[in-house]
């Protein structure tokens, strides 16, 4: 294994570990806060205004983190009809273009997100419920999109080498 391959492998595992810890922790916090809201309202006839805001924040962060995992597992739905009918070599080229387009978009979003965070920072607004500065909350998503970018880079490399991931799982809708 070349040093670069080892680095890629290490990045992949490191990211996976971070994703797992954050998703699991925040999902549990989300369950806790959601339950607390119901219990406080009905058992104690009270509640905190910040409860819902923090619940949403924890949940959204967990799910966006899972979006990065979904890049690794190829779970971002795509219509791969064409891929099924063209020769394998062509399919690989198409995949490379598709991954590159995804990478470009995510990178562009990171930049837009950076400008947006700067803007909200200049406006210096805060959430009325939690008192958290808006720019702090809004920087979560561009930060996670950086992880999307890393994941797409890893996938471009894998596709280039011809060992890209297995197809996606159960899906949704």
């Amino acid at each position: 294994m070349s040093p670069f391959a080892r680095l890629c492998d290490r990045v992949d595992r490191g990211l996976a570990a971070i994703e797992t810890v954050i998703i699991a922790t925040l999902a549990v916090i989300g369950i806790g806060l959601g339950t607390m809201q119901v219990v406080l309202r009905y058992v104690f006839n009270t509640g905190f205004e910040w409860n819902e805001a923090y619940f949403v924040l924890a949940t959204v962060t967990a799910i966006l983190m899972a979006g990065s995992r979904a890049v690794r597992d190829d779970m971002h739905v795509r219509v791969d009809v064409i891929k099924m009918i063209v020769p394998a070599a062509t399919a690989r080229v198409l995949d490379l273009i598709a991954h590159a387009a995804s990478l470009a978009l995510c990178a562009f979003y990171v930049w837009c997100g950076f400008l947006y965070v700067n803007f909200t920072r200049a406006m210096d607004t805060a959430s009325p419920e939690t008192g958290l500065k808006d720019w702090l909350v809004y920087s979560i998503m561009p930060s996670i999109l950086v992880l999307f970018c890393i994941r797409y880079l890893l996938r471009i490399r894998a596709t280039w080498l011809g060992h890209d991931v297995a197809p996606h799982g159960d899906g949704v809708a």
Partner: protein
Amino acid sequence: MTALVLVVLFFFLIVIGAPVAVALGGAVVATSLMLDPIPAAIIGQKVFANLDHFTLMAIPFFFFASALMETGGLVRRLIDLANAFVGHWTGGLGVTTVLSCIFFAAISGSSPATVAGVGRIMYPTLVKDGYTPRYALGALVTAGSIGILIPPSIPLIIYGFVTESSVTRLFMAGVVPGLIYGAGMMVMAWFLARKADVPRRPRLAWGERRAPIWAALPALMLPLVILVGIYGLPKFDLGILSYQGGAIFTPTEAAVMATLLALLIGMFVYRELTARDAINCIVSTAPSVGMIFFITTNALLFAFFITKLGIPAAVTGWIMSLGLEPWQFLLMVNLMFLIVGFFLEGVPTILMFVPVLFPAAVAVGVDPVHFGIIVIVNIELGLVTPPVGLNLFVASGVSGQPVLEAFYGALPWMVVTICVLLLVTFVPELSLWLPDLIFN
């Protein structure tokens, strides 16, 4: 011109196999950079500032709940229960499949999750009992799509989010069409089994039914908690125990409670779930939701861009100028969704088309809640039509059979889907009767 470039870019990205989310966002970004600039910070705002919406948070938790139900042994016990009562009928195991899908649908908000949850247990059982693989696949992919009609339903949550309709009301509207759909599927299960002359199971004595009933009781609590939680009970007063009536939580809170209960039942009642399993289950389910959220956020940017271009207003104006009757409009919508459904799955379909069609539907006088149910049944159909049909993919994964085999199996059952679609489209009362009864 701008609109044309947008559409061409979108289809180009779809065809090369870019994720739907990337096709939506990439088409907007490229078009805007070339022709009609949106300030980058506004793109940042549209992509980053719209996801923190309480209603959307129901989605991950309904996902977690159904995954935990499957892993924690709740689904298996619900299936055993259904089987104990109808297993001896002609096509009894087919009917069990449909009933299990209905049960599971009452906690799961996703059709593919329903197909996977029920299919992993029912497919081998059906085949072992002498049903053909096609029969088993057909029953699973079509009955499984009931998952999004019977509440909770993730596409309905998204629809409510996009159209600012009440999710609770939409949920209620899906119940009657869902039950009709289920009944139709059971008739089909019987009919196809009789034609194929599948062997029947022996009838269980009442004594033998007691065990599966007891075993399933805790699992049955889950749908009960969700339904009572969201819709409430009538007032009662029994001296010490009194209740004012009314619901206990919003759909989002119901999703959290369902997750918690599935966790507790799996861990402490059935003891089939360890804390580690539960965490694994959540971490492996979350990426599906991450995918939905990434599509949602890109679709919001897409919707903003087409609104800015004036497209929804133009489409509404054009449809109004045709002077269509509501039924003609709805027929047109059904045909359009049939075509879209070949290629796209539910959530992106709603996010892309509802912002355009909804104002037109309201303008020709279609009830927003009724329209929501029509959209959902169309999506159910799309889930079982190739080339892109998620239920087909999942069933193929569960059974090890080719995707096309699943589609051939589904063909006779789809007669029911289409009948229900037509019924729901042209008889608004089927959707509106229950919410009207409860809310007015």
